[in-house]
C-alpha cells in the first residue's frame, strides 16, 4: 500500500510538472530567429509576455523599423483572458492571439486545419477566427460556430489541428479584430523584429533597447536564459521530491521484507540445511521484494495517471473527460516506464539487506533460538 501511495504521488506530481515544463518548452519554437520586443515591465515566459504595459503599435513599430539591421517587424497582441468563472487561473490555459493575416506563419508554422477543411481568416475578414482543437472540443465548437466575446460575434472558420498545448488552447484572429474585441485599439504587447542578413539578434536587441524607450528586446537565447533556471529549479525540486519519496519507499519495503523474513526464519534456515546456495535464498527474497514493486508500481501508475488527470482538471478547468483521450500526453509513456522501473529497482534495493540476512540464517542457530 505504501509503495502504491508513493508511486501515485510521484506519478501525479511528476506528470503535472512535466506537463507544464513541456508546454513552456514547446513555446520555444515560437518566434524562432526573431528579437521579441515587449514593454519594459513585462515578464517573458518563452513567448508569453506577462504583465507590463501595452506598446503603442504604430509609434513603436516605426521606431524599430528605423533601426539599421531590422528586416521586418510583426506586431502581435497576446491576450490571456480570465477563466470562465471570472477568476484568473493558476495556470493560464486559454489564449487569444491577434496577428496580421500575412504573418500567420510566425505563430502557426505549418499547423494545418483539422480535416483540411475551412480556411484561415483573410485580410478582408472582419470577424473570422481559427481556434485550437482542445478549446473547440471543450466547448463543442465546429467550423462555422459563432463565438460571442465581449459583444463581438466571431465566426470560427477552421480548427487548428495541433498537439501543441499553446496553439491547441488559442483563438487566433487578425490583429485589428483582436484589438477591437479586447479593447486594445492600436496597441500590442509584442513586436517581433527579424534581423536583416548580416545582423545578429544580439546586436539588434541592443540597438532596439538603445533607440526605443520603455521597451525590452530579447533574443531567442535571452528568452531561453530567463526560463531555463526556472525550469531547472522545477526539475530539481521534482527530482528531490522523487528521491525523498523513493527513499521512504525503500525504507518501507526494507522494513516489510525484514519482517517477512524474520517470520520465516525457519524456512530460510531449512533451505540452508537442505543445501540451497546463498544466491538462491538471496534471489527468493529479492524476487518477493521486486514483486511488491511490480504490483505497487502497476497500481501506482494507474492511480498516479488518474491523479495527474484530476490535477490537470483542477488547474485548468478543462473537463476531465477531455483529458482521457490524451492521457499519454499528460503522463508520457517514457515517464511511466521510468517511474515503474525506478519503483521496481527501489523495491529490489529494499530487499537487499533482508536477503543478505535470510541467506545467512543457519538452521542450528534458528532452532536453538526457538527452544
Amino acid at each position, binding site marked *: 500500500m505504501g509503495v502504491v501511495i508513493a508511486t501515485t504521488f510521484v506519478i501525479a506530481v511528476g506528470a503535472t510538472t512535466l506537463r507544464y515544463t513541456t508546454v513552456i518548452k514547446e513555446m520555444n519554437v515560437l518566434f524562432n530567429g526573431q528579437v521579441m520586443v515587449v514593454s519594459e515591465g513585462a515578464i517573458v515566459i518563452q513567448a508569453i509576455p506577462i504583465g507590463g504595459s501595452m506598446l503603442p503599435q504604430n509609434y513603436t513599430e516605426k521606431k524599430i523599423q528605423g533601426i539599421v539591421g531590422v528586416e521586418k517587424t510583426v506586431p502581435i497582441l497576446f491576450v490571456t483572458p480570465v477563466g470562465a468563472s471570472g477568476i484568473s487561473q493558476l495556470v493560464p490555459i486559454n489564449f487569444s492571439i491577434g496577428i496580421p493575416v500575412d504573418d500567420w506563419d510566425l505563430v502557426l508554422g505549418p499547423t494545418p486545419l483539422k480535416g483540411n477543411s475551412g480556411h484561415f481568416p483573410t485580410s478582408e475578414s472582419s470577424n473570422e477566427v481559427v481556434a485550437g482543437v482542445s478549446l473547440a472540443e471543450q466547448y463543442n465548437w465546429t467550423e462555422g460556430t459563432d463565438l460571442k466575446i465581449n459583444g463581438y460575434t466571431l465566426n470560427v472558420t477552421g480548427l487548428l489541428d495541433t498537439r501543441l498545448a499553446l496553439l491547441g488552447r488559442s483563438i487566433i484572429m487578425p490583429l485589428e479584430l483582436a484589438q477591437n474585441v479586447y479593447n486594445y485599439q492600436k496597441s500590442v504587447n509584442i513586436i517581433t523584429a527579424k534581423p536583416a542578413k548580416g545582423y545578429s539578434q544580439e546586436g539588434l536587441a541592443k540597438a532596439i533597447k538603445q533607440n526605443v524607450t520603455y521597451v525590452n528586446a530579447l533574443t531567442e537565447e535571452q528568452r531561453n536564459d530567463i526560463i531555463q533556471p526556472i525550469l531547472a529549479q522545477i526539475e530539481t525540486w521534482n527530482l528531490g521530491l522523487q528521491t525523498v519519496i523513493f527513499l521512504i519507499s525503500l525504507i518501507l519495503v526494507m522494513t516489510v521484507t525484514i519482517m517477512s523474513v524474520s517470520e520465516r526464519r525457519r524456512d530460510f534456515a531449512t*533451505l540452508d540445511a*537442505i*543445501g540451497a546456495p546463498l544466491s538462491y535464498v538471496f534471489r527468493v527474497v529479492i524476487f518477493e521484494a521486486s514483486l511488491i514493486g511490480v504490483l505497487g508500481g502497476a497500481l501506482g501508475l494507474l492511480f498516479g495517471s488518474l491523479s495527474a488527470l484530476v490535477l490537470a482538471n483542477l488547474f485548468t478547468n478543462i473537463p476531465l473527460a477531455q483529458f482521457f483521450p490524451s492521457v499519454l500526453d499528460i503522463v508520457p509513456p517514457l515517464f511511466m516506464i521510468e517511474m515503474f522501473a525506478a519503483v521496481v529497482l527501489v523495491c529490489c534495493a529494499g530487499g537487499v539487506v533482508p536477503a543478505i540476512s535470510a541467506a545467512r540464517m543457519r538452521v542450528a542457530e534458528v532452532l536453538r533460538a526457538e527452544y
Partner: protein
Amino acid sequence: MGIRTENLTRTYDLGSSQITAVNNANFEVHEKTFTAIVGRSGSGKSTLLNLIGLNDYPTSGRILFDNVDVFSLSSSERRRIRLNHLGFVFQTFNLLPTLNAVENVELPMALMGKTPREQRERAVELLETVGLGNRLSHRPKQLSIGEMQRVAIARALANDPETMIADEPTGELDSKTAEEIITLLLDVNRREEKTIVVATHDQKIVQMADRIFTIQDGRLAQEK
C-alpha cells in the same frame, strides 16, 4: 560415505557462562549401517547431529567425510555435500508451509538442477514409497504429524543421498505412527542401503540399530 569425528567439541557462549554441548566426541559411522545416538533431552544429541549434518560449526576437532576434513572445505562445498550426499530429517519436520507435499520433496532436486519432469516423477515415487501417494497436493497444515514426518523423510531422500540423519524422528509421534516411521527408516537402511544416523530416546529404534552410542552431558560413549 564414511563419517568420522575426531575430538569434536561444540561450546556455546551464554553471556558470562559457557555450555559444552558436545565434548571431545570421537566416533565413526560405518557405511550402510543404522546408528543410534541415545541420550536424554539436552544431552547434546541434536548438536552432534547438526555438526555431522554440517548445519553447525565445531568449536574444535574435526569431522571427516571419506577421510576429508569437511570444515577445511569452503562453505559452498559443504552446501553441495548437504545437497548431494546428506539427507536431514528434523524433529520438527521443517517443511515449507507454502509448498505442498510433492513440492517440498521436489525442492532439493530443483536446487540440484534436475528438470521439472524428473523432479515430479521422483517426488511422486518417494511419496508413494512412504505411503503418501494420495496426499501429494496437500500442504503441511493439511497433513497429520506422522504424514509430515513421512514427507520430511521423502524430502531427505530426494537427491538419493548416501547418508540420512534424523533428529528424534519419532519424538513428536504417537506410538502407532512412531512404529510406522521406524519401519520406514529401517526399510530405507536395509532396502535402499542408506547409512542412517538417528538421535533418539525411543527404545524401539535403539533395538533395531546396528550401533548405539550414548551421550551424556556432551560426552559420547559406545554401547554396541
